Structure formats: structure tokens, C-alpha cells
């Protein structure tokens, strides 16, 4: 039972856990104490003096951001003395401030503006020349305007404490003090832009957003990042059907305000000039634009014809289409096309984990668990590179609760900065190294194990057996690459499993061909690829196959297609994604892209043209069906509707499939890469950090 402390703030009785800061105690009572330098989750700075309050019996005003609530304390947050002090602090902050609000990106959502509006003096007594320095470009994505800086150190702390990058510092002295980047005149860092968003004023600005719009001219749409599997909630600023920025300042969603470079800046693939705007059909060896009706009719006719003569049809689904789309695609393939040759690029062995954990509940860790667990073990993964939010979450756990982290990796990783134990091993020997840690791990009260694609097939079972042998509660995360990699497996884009990991035999089907087998089959009659680019890595053996591709761009695979259908991106549709930890979240449509259709709409059109019944092509209706039929997906709708994350919970018996570890392969995308989408993001291509070379501090 937590000890509680009673105190009085502005006449209100407040009860808070012992150790609570007065600024937070006030917040709990609905009283806002102004603060620039104080920031939830970061080290205390006490630099700005905005939070001064009057405390009974204290001889002078005290900073509420460092003051720990004591029993019987009597605090006043808005007395004349307090207001006077805040006014003086603001006058001081403005002595060197350019007051260029009309052209400042932050205007309208600036904390300094708000405070001056509330307390500020109407006139300044400062007559001296202000120190002016020119704006600096720290990187293609991060700009710094020193005169606007109020030296709250938030940026310095988030980069150091939050990310472990430590790319920002404070240089010079007095009125010349400013923020400096780690490479003299430029940054070499994660380019996450966390420093930009955390800046209370317009001192750090975004290379993508600056001078583009006023904040009040945008609509704000909360959706899920289209890039990696971590499933960060992102709030897109939209104007005239264009995404202008992405951030998550309201801290809604499982990631709070965290976004990595891909989430914050990498949304610009949607407007890449090479984006497909019209269906293409091969005529005389060349892809030519046609209208949707013609394209759909052609695909329907060819599919019907191939089906009628019992031809072999292969279907390759996506790691970045919604659960609803994945569900419909497998349904279409199995029920309409009568094929079970369906697969997707598997980036982690989720199937083996679900099998190994058969019959248990609560053995899959959530992103929240990563922040709370007392101990964690990372196997064969460079989290800061490949799973940015998970890395952030573990690091925050370490800073706030002293997480004990173990890392077993083939190469150096950033987590070594704070790991209690880090072991380097040769690739392929990870598990042996992990088993060597048994004695230490047994001493932990609980453990979350995160493992990369080096642990697959039989090794997953060996790992779970190892976890069981520790005699402590163990949860697992099977790391996968993309925004809905997990959902692709959950929804049965697999040749041997139906949605919810039910064996295909339940539907009276036989195991179909896996992805490489589909590509290698010389007698394949048709290949249908939805949101994937398999021909980038392997050729298609069947020269006669009729190839249909749904994608945003003319990828290597689309170039081989007979029909290309322009698909909508994640930011242009509604539906759900399931993140790496199995948490389901809702996408909200932010923009329309002329010419493109969502994959779900395309399935609907094709079904209609083939006079087949796959149910309404409406995401809500499809999700209802998923909830009703897919084990583990019967989640509470209000949670999703409110922008929350609902953990899915596959509860199965064994998953009786053959282990195919050779099919599991992570793309090992780095912080600045993200499959096809990343290739078409100018922002991600603009940074100069060497891909794969992470700044390690």
C-alpha cells in the first residue's frame, strides 16, 4: 500500500502518494502551475523559475517542480507575489527574445506565448541591443534559431536521457548561451525530431514543417504510423488533403509523445511524384494507363478463366495492409479463387511463438509491460535501429524504475550503455549464450524476452523451455519488421494457417505453397501481389503467369505485372493494425489520394466483378467479422474508438504446422529505412547519417 500525503493547494485538500512533486500534486487537483523546464519523465532542472509558488511558513517563493509534497503543507499558486514573480521571469526571458511570433512556426501553440498572454507585462524596460544570431541548420530535418531559445534544456535532456543519443549540448555563456549540436556545426544523431516537439518555443524547428502553415489551419487526425511494427500513435496535421506534419504532442496512444524519424518525418512517401494514380495494364509489352472499370474487369475475367481451368494461383499479401484487408484477402483467395497458396514476407517467427505458448494467457508482453517489467532480455536485435519505440520504452523503464537489462547480440547495440549484462556472441550462437545467463536470470523477479529473427522454429521452443526453467514469470515479444507484420500472421496470410492460427485442415484444405515456392513454381498461372515486393529479391520462375499487383509505387514486382492497381496508403484509410506486441489499434483516414483505392475497396470491386460473395468491403463490418471469428480478437470496441490499444490474446492449442525457419527473414531495416515506403520518402533519404551506422554517443 502506497503511503499517502495530505496537503492543501489553493484551499483544496489534495492527497497524493509520498514523493509526489507539488507541481504534479497541483495537476492532480486540476490546478496548472506554469512550467518551462519541468518536464514529466525527465530529470529536474529548476532553470526557469516559472513554477514559483508560495508555501506557508517558507521565507521565500519555492519552485513547485522540485518541491516534494509534505504532510500538512499549505501551498498557494496564484498570489500577487507569485504573479509578480512570474511576470518578472517572463520579462527576463523576453529581454533577448525576438518576438517574431507572426513568422514563427510555434505561434499559436507556443508555451511562451501562452505564459506571456497570461502573466506578461505590457511593456519592456529593456533598452539595450538584443543579441541576434542567424538561424542554423543542424541537419536537413532540424533547424535552430538561438534568439528564440529560453534555455529550458528540455531538448538536451530528451536527447540524452530519452534517446541515449546525447547529440545536443549547451555552449557559451550568459546572454550568448545557445544549444549546440554534437558535430560542431551539424548533428549526427537519430534525427527523431523529439527535440523539436519538446521545445516549448520555436527555437528548434522542423525542416519539413517550417514556414508551411499556421497550426490552427490544420486538421489533426490521430492514426497509426505506417512504418515499423511498434505501432506508434501519430497525430497528422492535415491541410487541403496534404499531410504537413506528424507528431503526438497530446501524448495519446501507447507511445506517449515518442516518434522516431520515420514516424515524424517519413510520411512524405504519400506525395512522392512517382506515386501511382491510375491503374496500368500491359499492352504490347508495355504498361499503359486504363480506367478502374477496365482494369478490374480484366483481372476478374482472367482470374475466373484461370480458376475455371483449375490453374495454380499464388497470392502474396502485405506487412502493411490492415487486418481487415488481410482477412479479406485470405478469404478471397481461399473461398473465391479456391487457392491456398497464400503467404507474406515473414520477418519473425510469430507462429512458432504462438505454438510454444499454447494454452497460456498473458505470456505475450505489451509495450506497457516493457516500461514496467523489472528485467528484460534482448536477443539478437539492435533495438535502437530496428524497434525504435521498444528501445525508448526499455530505456525509460531503466531511467524511471531501474530496469535490469540483459543483451545478447552479435554486434554492438545502444542498449549496452545501461545493460547490467551484455554478451556478444557469434551469429547463430545466441541461444547458447542466453542459456549461459540462466543463473543470473533466475535471480530476477520477472522477465520479458525480446527476440529477433535469429530465434526461429525449433529455437523458439528451446527459448520458451529455457524461460520455463527459470522459475519466474516470463513474457515474450517476437520482433517483426513492419506496421502490420503481426496482423498478417494473425489474419492467416499463411499457406498452412487460417486467421487465428487455426490449421487449414479445419477448413478442409491442404497446405499451400509458401512464398519462395510460389515464386519458384514453373507452372504458376497467376500471381496476385498485394502491398509487397517479392521480386526485388527473387525472380518469378513462371514466365507465363498473369501477374496482378496492388501497390503505391511501380516496384520491381509491379514492373513485372500485367495489371497494376494503385493502392491507398495507411494514411488514406481506416481499419486496424496489430503491433509487434499484439496490440490492436485503429487507423483513421487523414487524406484522400486521387486515383488510388484502398486494398479493401479493390477486393470489393473484384468480388463484385466476379459475382462472388466476400461480405461488405467496409472496415467496420469486416472487423466485426474478425472479432466474431478470430480467436484473440474479440476486443472491446470502445477502447479502439477512443484511440487506445487493445491487446489481442491468441489462446490456442498447439499450432500443428511444420517448422520452416528458412522462411523467416527480417529485412533489418535501419532507423532511416523502411522497405518500399522508406525508399520513397524524401525526408528519410535526405539525412546524411550513414544507414545502419547509429550514433552511439
Amino acid at each position: 500500500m502506497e503511503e499517502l500525503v495530505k496537503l492543501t493547494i489553493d484551499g483544496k485538500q489534495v492527497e497524493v502518494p509520498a514523493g509526489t512533486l507539488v507541481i504534479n500534486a497541483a495537476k492532480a487537483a486540476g490546478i496548472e502551475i506554469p512550467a518551462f523546464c519541468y518536464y514529466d519523465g525527465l530529470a529536474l532542472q529548476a532553470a526557469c523559475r516559472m513554477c514559483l509558488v508560495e508555501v506557508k511558513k517558507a521565507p521565500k517563493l519555492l519552485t513547485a517542480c522540485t518541491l516534494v509534497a509534505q504532510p500538512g503543507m499549505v501551498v498557494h499558486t496564484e498570489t500577487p507575489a507569485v504573479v509578480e514573480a512570474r511576470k518578472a521571469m517572463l520579462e527576463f526571458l523576453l529581454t533577448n527574445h525576438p518576438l517574431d511570433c507572426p513568422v514563427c512556426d510555434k505561434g499559436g501553440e507556443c508555451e511562451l506565448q501562452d505564459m506571456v498572454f497570461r502573466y506578461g507585462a505590457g511593456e519592456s524596460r529593456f533598452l539595450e541591443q538584443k543579441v541576434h544570431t542567424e538561424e542554423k541548420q543542424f541537419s536537413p530535418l532540424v533547424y535552430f534559431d538561438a534568439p528564440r531559445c529560453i534555455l529550458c534544456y528540455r531538448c538536451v535532456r530528451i536527447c540524452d536521457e530519452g534517446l541515449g543519443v546525447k547529440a545536443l549540448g549547451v555552449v557559451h555563456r550568459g546572454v550568448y548561451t545557445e544549444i549546440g549540436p554534437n558535430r560542431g556545426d551539424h548533428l549526427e544523431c537519430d534525427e527523431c525530431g523529439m527535440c523539436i516537439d519538446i521545445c516549448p518555443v520555436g527555437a528548434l524547428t522542423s525542416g519539413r514543417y517550417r514556414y508551411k502553415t499556421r497550426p490552427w489551419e490544420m486538421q489533426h487526425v490521430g492514426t497509426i504510423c505506417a512504418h515499423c511494427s511498434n505501432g506508434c500513435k501519430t497525430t497528422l496535421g492535415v491541410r487541403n488533403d496534404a499531410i504537413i506534419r506528424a507528431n503526438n504532442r497530446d501524448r495519446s496512444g501507447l507511445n506517449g509523445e515518442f516518434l522516431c524519424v520515420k514516424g515524424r518525418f517519413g510520411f512524405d512517401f504519400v506525395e512522392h511524384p512517382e506515386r501511382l494514380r491510375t491503374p496500368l495494364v500491359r499492352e504490347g509489352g508495355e504498361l499503359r494507363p486504363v480506367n478502374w472499370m477496365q482494369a478490374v474487369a480484366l483481372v476478374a475475367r482472367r482470374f475466373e478463366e484461370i480458376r475455371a481451368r483449375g490453374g495454380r494461383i499464388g497470392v502474396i499479401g502485405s506487412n502493411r495492409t490492415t487486418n481487415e484487408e488481410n482477412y479479406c484477402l485470405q478469404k478471397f483467395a481461399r473461398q473465391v479463387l479456391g487457392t491456398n497458396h497464400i503467404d507474406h514476407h515473414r520477418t519473425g517467427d510469430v507462429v512458432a511463438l504462438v505454438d510454444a505458448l499454447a494454452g497460456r494467457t498473458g505470456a505475450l508482453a505489451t509495450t506497457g509491460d516493457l516500461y514496467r517489467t523489472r528485467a528484460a532480455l534482448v536477443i539478437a536485435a539492435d533495438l535502437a535501429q530496428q524497434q525504435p519505440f521498444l528501445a525508448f520504452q526499455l530505456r525509460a523503464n531503466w531511467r524511471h524504475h531501474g530496469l535490469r537489462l540483459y543483451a545478447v547480440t552479435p554486434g554492438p547495440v545502444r542498449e549496452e550503455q545501461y545493460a547490467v549484462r551484455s554478451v556478444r556472441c557469434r551469429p547463430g550462437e545466441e541461444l547458447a549464450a542466453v542459456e549461459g545467463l540462466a543463473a543470473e536470470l533466475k535471480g530476477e523477479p520477472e522477465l520479458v524476452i525480446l527476440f529477433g529473427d535469429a530465434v526461429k522454429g525449433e529455437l523458439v521452443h528451446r527459448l520458451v523451455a529455457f524461460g520455463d526453467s527459470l522459475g519466474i514469470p516470463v513474457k515474450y515479444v517476437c520482433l517483426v519488421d513492419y506496421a502490420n507484420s503481426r496482423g498478417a500472421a494473425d489474419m492467416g496470410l499463411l499457406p498452412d494457417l487460417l486467421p487465428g492460427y487455426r490449421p487449414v485442415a479445419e477448413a478442409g484444405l491442404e497446405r499451400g505453397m509458401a512464398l519462395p515456392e510460389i515464386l519458384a513454381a514453373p507452372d504458376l498461372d497467376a500471381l496476385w501481389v498485394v502491398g509487397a515486393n517479392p521480386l526485388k529479391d527473387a525472380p518469378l520462375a513462371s514466365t507465363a503467369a498473369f501477374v496482378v499487383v496492388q501497390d503505391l509505387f511501380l516496384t520491381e514486382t509491379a514492373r513485372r505485372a500485367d495489371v497494376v492497381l494503385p493502392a491507398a496508403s495507411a494514411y488514406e484509410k481506416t481499419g486496424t493494425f496489430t503491433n509487434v506486441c499484439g496490440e490492436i489499434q485503429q487507423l483513421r483516414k487523414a487524406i484522400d489520394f486521387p486515383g488510388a483505392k484502398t486494398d479493401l475497396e479493390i477486393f470489393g470491386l473484384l468480388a463484385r466483378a466476379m459475382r462472388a460473395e466476400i461480405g461488405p468491403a467496409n472496415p467496420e463490418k469486416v472487423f466485426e467479422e474478425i472479432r466474431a471469428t478470430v480467436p484473440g480478437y474479440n476486443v472491446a470496441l470502445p477502447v479502439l474508438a477512443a484511440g487506445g490499444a487493445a491487446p489481442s490474446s491468441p489462446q490456442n492449442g498447439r499450432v500443428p504446422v511444420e517448422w520452416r525457419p528458412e522462411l523467416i527473414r527480417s529485412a533489418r531495416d535501419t532507423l532511416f529505412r523502411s522497405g518500399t515506403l522508406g525508399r520513397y520518402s524524401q525526408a528519410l533519404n535526405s539525412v546524411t547519417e550513414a544507414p545502419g551506422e547509429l550514433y552511439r554517443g
Partner: protein
Amino acid sequence: MTFSPELEAKFARLVTHYPPGRERAALIPMLLFAQDEVGAITPEVVQEISRRLKVSPLEIEEVVSYYSMLHKEPRGRYHFQVCTNISCMLLGGAELFEYLKEKLGIDNHGVTPDGLFSLEEVECIGACSWAPALQVNYDYHHWVTRERLDRLIEDLRKVS
């Protein structure tokens, strides 16, 4: 880069002054000693000290740009630091500073072309009782007058 054996010995002693794990506390004295030997905090010095103390180059820049006695550009062999703070100002410090500027033909923060002298206006150097005061490198000169200055400069020219 390599330092002289004397400096190496100093460094070795210095890091033992701090508890294990707190070696970074040796940063400021290390910078000062290295600056004395090399003549300035050059990028090479930064790199070397960064490596030894496991302090990032940015953190070193934070320190170097903060403290005025640390400098990245080489100074004259004799660096004149003239106090113009209250006590010294009342007793002619500011005039002495102006006189030196004229005599050496350089401005505040300037270096003579032969690299012998450099000049800096500084705040109180803690020698108020003997004002006006100035410092040449680490040596203090009290009750300074124009004549004494002339003689000092002449002597310094001779010994070099």
C-alpha cells in the same frame, strides 16, 4: 596525439584524485594543462581528452566555450590579462588597457604578428588590494603603471 612525459605524468596523477567512475571530473585541469603545453585547445586535444576521460567532444565544447581561460585559438607567448573591474578601473586599469592596445598595436583578444604578445580585458582577478593589476600568463603584476609596463615588455622581448 602525444603529450610530453611531464604532462603524461601530471595526467596520470590527476585522475587518481577522483573516485573511480568519476574520472571526468579531471576535465577542466586536464584542458588547462594541455592548453599550456599545446598552446590552445585544438581539435586534436579535444579528441585525445575525449578518448581518455570518455567525455564527448560536445561536452568538452560546452566547457571550453563557457570558461574564458580556455581558448581554441593560439595566443601570444605572453598573454596580458588586464583587469578593468571596479577597483582597478578606479585606479587606472582601463587607461592601462588602452595604453597596451596602442603600444602592442592590437585589439582586445588580438595577437601581435610575431606571436609574442596577446591581450585580453578581464574581470576581477582577485588582486583588488594591489590595483591596478594584471596577469601575464600565470604571473601577477601589481600596482601597474605605464613605466612598469614598458619595462616589463622590454624584459620579455629580451628573454625571448
